[in-house]
């Protein structure tokens, strides 16, 4: 009960924030009623998925300050668990998703336990290395379809299938991921006020002081890493059912890991709204740039160039992201 009350309590944010958040959430709930193209719908689903990825990254990377550039491996584990279980044994999504989370969390313990002895760059590169090892393994593992990947053919099932998450219209997917999205916000809101959340922020500020205050630094990091992993793997399972065709190249690639970290950082790592703002800015921009410049004008790669320039500008000019700018403006007004 305490936890639920704490999760629903947003009172430490200013009124204007809550007003804007309310307007945005009403818009999100009502979005399918407005006339929209299927491209816009797909972009919205991508936005919700990536803000969830970003929230997961934000728990360890934002609040904890441990830069993880290997989140894509957990997306892959979640996606593959859901897809393999559905295609081979006809296991419904609501069973395979927790299984995927379980596998991902186990794997995160296996690699997180030794890796959290490392700090900073060393940790970041090591997460990339494990992610690439896992991707290479999945590319030759025949059981999961090797490099061809797995395909969930919707013909075998009768959509709308709420147990297996097979739908013809994107609206269903939209509302399911929207549900996850709101739950995710509530969870992170609880997390940042929990004991672990405070421990993590003190670790970020100064690890030695945190240790001297009796915080088990290593264990706190490993636990938070598992939480972040569970988030990412959950959305990975959803991704498998939504895209219906998964390959190691697009579920486990380094680009995905970086995109996740980047979005959280662009919006503002270490704040509740940061990843959502980041995803809201980047995902529409990325998909529309790709549509306009990449597909229509035939300029391959120009969308990623613009995207790279944004990364470079953000990291050089305002590393705390958009939320950092907002807070700076506010601080000036208060004075």
């Amino acid at each position, binding site marked *: 009960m305490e936890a639920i009350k704490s999760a629903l309590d947003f009172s430490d944010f200013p009124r204007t924030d809550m007003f804007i958040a309310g307007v945005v959430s009403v818009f999100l709930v009502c979005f399918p009623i407005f006339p929209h193209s299927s491209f816009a719908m797909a972009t919205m689903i991508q936005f919700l998925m990536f803000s969830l990825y970003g929230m997961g990254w934000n728990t360890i*990377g934002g609040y904890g*300050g441990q*830069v993880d*550039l290997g989140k894509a491996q957990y997306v892959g584990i979640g996606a593959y668990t859901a897809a393999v279980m559905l295609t081979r044994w006809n296991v419904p999504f609501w069973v395979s998703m927790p299984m995927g989370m379980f596998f991902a969390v186990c794997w995160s313990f296996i*690699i997180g336990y*030794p*890796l959290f*002895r*490392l700090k*900073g*760059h*060393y940790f*970041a*590169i*090591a997460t*990339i*290395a*494990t992610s*690439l*090892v896992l991707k*290479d*393994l999945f*590319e*030759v593992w025949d059981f999961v379809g090797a490099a061809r990947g797995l395909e969930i053919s919707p013909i075998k099932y009768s959509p709308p299938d709420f147990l297996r998450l097979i739908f013809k219209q994107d609206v269903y997917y939209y509302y399911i991921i929207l549900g996850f999205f709101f739950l995710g916000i509530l969870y992170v809101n609880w997390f940042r006020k929990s004991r672990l959340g405070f421990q993590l922020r003190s670790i970020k500020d100064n690890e030695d002081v945190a240790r001297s205050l009796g915080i088990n630094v290593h264990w706190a990091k490993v636990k938070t890493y598992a939480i972040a992993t569970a988030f990412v793997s959950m959305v990975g399972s959803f991704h498998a059912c939504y895209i219906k065709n998964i390959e190691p190249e697009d579920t486990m690639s*380094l680009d995905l890991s*970086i995109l996740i*970290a*980047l979005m959280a*950082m662009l919006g503002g*790592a270490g704040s509740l709204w940061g990843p959502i703002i980041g995803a809201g800015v980047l995902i529409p921009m990325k998909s529309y740039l790709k549509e306009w410049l990449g597909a229509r004008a035939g*300029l*391959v*790669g*120009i969308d*990623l*160039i613009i*995207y*790279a*320039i*944004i*990364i*470079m500008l*953000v*990291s*050089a*000019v305002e*590393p705390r992201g958009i939320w950092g700018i907002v807070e700076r403006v506010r601080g000036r007004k208060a004075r």
Partner: protein
Amino acid sequence: MDILVSSLAAGLLIGMVLALVALGLTIIFGVMDIVNFAHGEFLMVGMYTGLLTAQSLRIDPLLTLPFAAIVGFVLGVICYVGFVKFLLRGPMVAQLLGTFGLMLFLRNLALLIFGSEDRALHHGLLVGKSFDIGMGVIIPATKLAAAGLSVAAFWAVWILMNRTKIGKALTATALNSQGARYMGIPTERMNALAWGIGGASVTIAGALIVNFWSVNPFIGLLFTMIAFAIVALGGFGSVPGAFFAGLVVGIITEIPGIWDFFTYTFNIRWMANVPMTSFKYMWVYLAYFIIMVVRPRGLFGWKR
């Protein structure tokens, strides 16, 4: 037996080139504690420079090394002065993602300009020639030349770092940049120089590698990860460490050949069924992981 010897020889030769690839990364890390994710992309720039100058000027690919070195030096200095300088003030997340943005930028610029197809050199003094050194071991002349020139370049950089005043200033900046500034060393300029030397050494390596390896815009990441593994094994910031670790990692990339040797020599059936060549680079990543867990300082590392 011949498989084993030729695998080991190939591993050692490629290892010498890879050591040169990692040299730039370890210098940059040593001087200013920043990990350059765009390192492999610098190598790609070097490969394209070597390829295009050789093709357009119709000269031997080995003569393109000075061009590649100049391009790399200028690129490194521009990257530092125009971009990385601003990253150094920020937190570590910003540094990691910033150089990652640089990597994406260079990669996709190359994609836009050159297209995604593989390009390779087909002419040149040494292309296609090889030495037979007996016992069935055949060594391609391009690899031998690349390895020799890599060692020469490595030695030149080592001399620069250890026997000249500039090198001493660089080392001083690496050890304690504030102290170096008090002693009148222009640390800003030393940082730019480190990026210049780092860029030049890796583009030289690129111009050597293009002799026997086809180039496309996506090749950078593989070499970035290999360079990370070498630098981790040798110790972040250590120049001699990079050389020995380069040889070790070169042999690690030849694990499939060594595996074949054991498979055929002892006739082990299950070993023959493992698709070892698809794991070729996985061993490098795994080696990185194990090194970081067991000995994060690396073999010769002095930074913690």
